């Protein structure tokens, strides 16, 4: 009889039970250690990949003698960023504020419009195509009108950022609102809930995973939107954002600084994303599979 005793909480098998973490019989001091270990584990792999990517890039660029004006080395980029640090920071600051406004507008209008559409199929059918037009019509085509109607600079840029980041929120929210479990809808229906109550107390909470998925897409797109906005409707000069900086670096053939700006934009996008990610964890971790610890 080959019996094998397994001591508690020492089994290494894959744990599907998201309800448990490392087991609460473990003592407190060990818990703190665990948290440190976990943080380390979650920070370490991306860090290693980062090192590999950046190191590899640097090495390949050096080895193959890739010209910096074609593809600058990481060191070139860092140097360019350091040399222009104060300019870069001003640009980043400008872009951040534009992107934030654009994103907030997207969130508010996207969710509100989705709710309106979800409440009435007829409205959805009539209005939704225009939302798609808003997303598909090339910004360059309507940029002049935006500039003329809303004035160049911040206004136009925020509107362009909004136009670019708004649709993913609208679309995802709408699908989420339409995905509510039939049993729960029946529950609210039978308890005589008004449409508004059903939306607020049932359909929006149930759609949260979808809404958050939309936010995750939109948040970094709002950065792109701000940059595109600066590019096509921006004001030049001292307070130009990253879009302006990129154009200038591009015409001046300062490839390394161009990359520094581009990567700043990417970092901005990632920071926005991580913030939304935190929000998502906070909203969903207690009840939705997508954010449960495991």
């Amino acid at each position, binding site marked *: 009889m080959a019996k094998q005793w397994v001591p508690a909480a020492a089994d290494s098998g894959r744990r599907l039970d998201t309800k448990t973490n490392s087991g609460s019989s473990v003592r407190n001091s060990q818990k703190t250690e665990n948290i440190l270990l976990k943080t380390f584990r979650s920070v370490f792999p991306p860090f290693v990949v980062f090192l590999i990517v950046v190191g590899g890039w640097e090495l390949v660029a050096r080895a193959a003698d890739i*010209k*910096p*004006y*074609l593809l600058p080395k990481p060191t070139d980029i860092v140097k360019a960023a350091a040399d222009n640090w104060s300019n870069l920071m001003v640009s980043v600051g400008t872009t951040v504020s534009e992107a934030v406004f654009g994103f907030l507008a997207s969130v508010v209008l996207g969710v509100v419009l989705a709710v309106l559409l979800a409440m009435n199929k007829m409205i959805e059918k009539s209005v939704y195509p225009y939302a798609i037009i808003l997303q598909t019509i090339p910004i*360059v085509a309507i*940029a*002049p*009108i935006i*500039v*003329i109607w809303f004035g*160049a600079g911040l206004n136009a840029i925020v509107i362009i950022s909004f136009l670019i980041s708004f649709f993913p929120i609208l679309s995802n929210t709408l699908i989420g609102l339409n995905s509510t479990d039939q049993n729960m809808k029946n529950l609210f229906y039978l308890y005589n809930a008004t449409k508004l109550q059903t939306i607020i107390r049932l359909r929006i909470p149930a759609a949260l995973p979808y809404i958050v998925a939309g936010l995750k897409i939109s948040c970094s797109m709002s950065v792109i939107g701000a940059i595109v906005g*600066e*590019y*096509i*409707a*921006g*004001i*030049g*000069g001292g307070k*130009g954002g990253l879009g*302006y900086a990129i*154009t*200038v*670096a*591009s*015409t*001046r*053939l*300062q*490839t390394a600084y161009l990359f520094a700006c581009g990567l700043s934009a990417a970092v901005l996008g990632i920071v926005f994303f991580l913030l939304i990610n935190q929000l998502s964890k906070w909203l969903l971790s207690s009840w939705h599979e997508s954010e449960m610890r495991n």
Partner: protein
Amino acid sequence: ACGNNNNSAVSAGTPEGGKVSAKVTTVTNWFAQAEHGGVYAALEEGFYKDAGLDMTITPGGPQISATQIVASGKAEFGMAQADEILLARQNGIPLVALFASFQTNPQGLVVHKDAGIASPDNLHGKSVYVSSGAGYWEYLKKAYSLSDVKQMAYTGSAAPFLADSNVVLQGYVTSEPFEMKNQNVDVDFLLNADFGYNPYGNVLFTTEDYLKKHGDVVKAFVEATAKGFEAYKTDYKTINEAIQKESPDMTTEKLTYASETMMPLVFDGDAKEHGVGYMSKERWETLAKQMTDTGLLDKMPDVSEVYTDEYFTK
């Protein structure tokens, strides 16, 4: 008219008999237009072929950087403004200017006739749409103390200009006045060259490396291109038809207007004496100094390395 020849540099060579034979590509700085007339003429009339060059002309576009494409070796020859070449060299891109299409740069500012702008001195308080980072604007700003001018990003649209007579737009003397006339808008044109900033326009260039290795190909290219411009001068109507094939949306009138406007800018000045495409050290030095003064260049470059005039023997 697209596609790049990856192996074209390899195939360049000089067989016995002294005649070159090479497959080469030229990247222009925009979609095919009259301003590129000389190059297309050389292609159409077979001057490149006669010189032993199997030539492909690739039109540029808004974000297609001829300097980077040539620097990467995907093309042998490219087209850019003189100030761009200086900037490129400062940023480590070893380009050499070979041939200046325009003695007088066609770039300038379009202004409404009733705005009463006769010189950059009158620009105070206006909104000016210029490409972000444009060299001439840095010069004008400094030379005419235009810090109170509202600078806007130019992205190719003229709509803001049409909407407001206080708006000033960047443009080409060969193009925008014609378009505005078609829209029944009365405009004046301030040519940058008239106000002190005159980089050679549509300069054809190659890399230092290519020049060193394939001097004969370069020579053949420059000579054929010069012949092309001479041919274009007399026969621009037929060449324009070829250009129209590349850019079907160009009207004949527009091309004709451009051709007629550009001739003095190409063939007057030093070109009269030294031939079309000629470049002088003084002009390059003036430009380099202007750019250094405005901060576009960190330090004065040695302009003798920037261009070569050894193919102009007249």
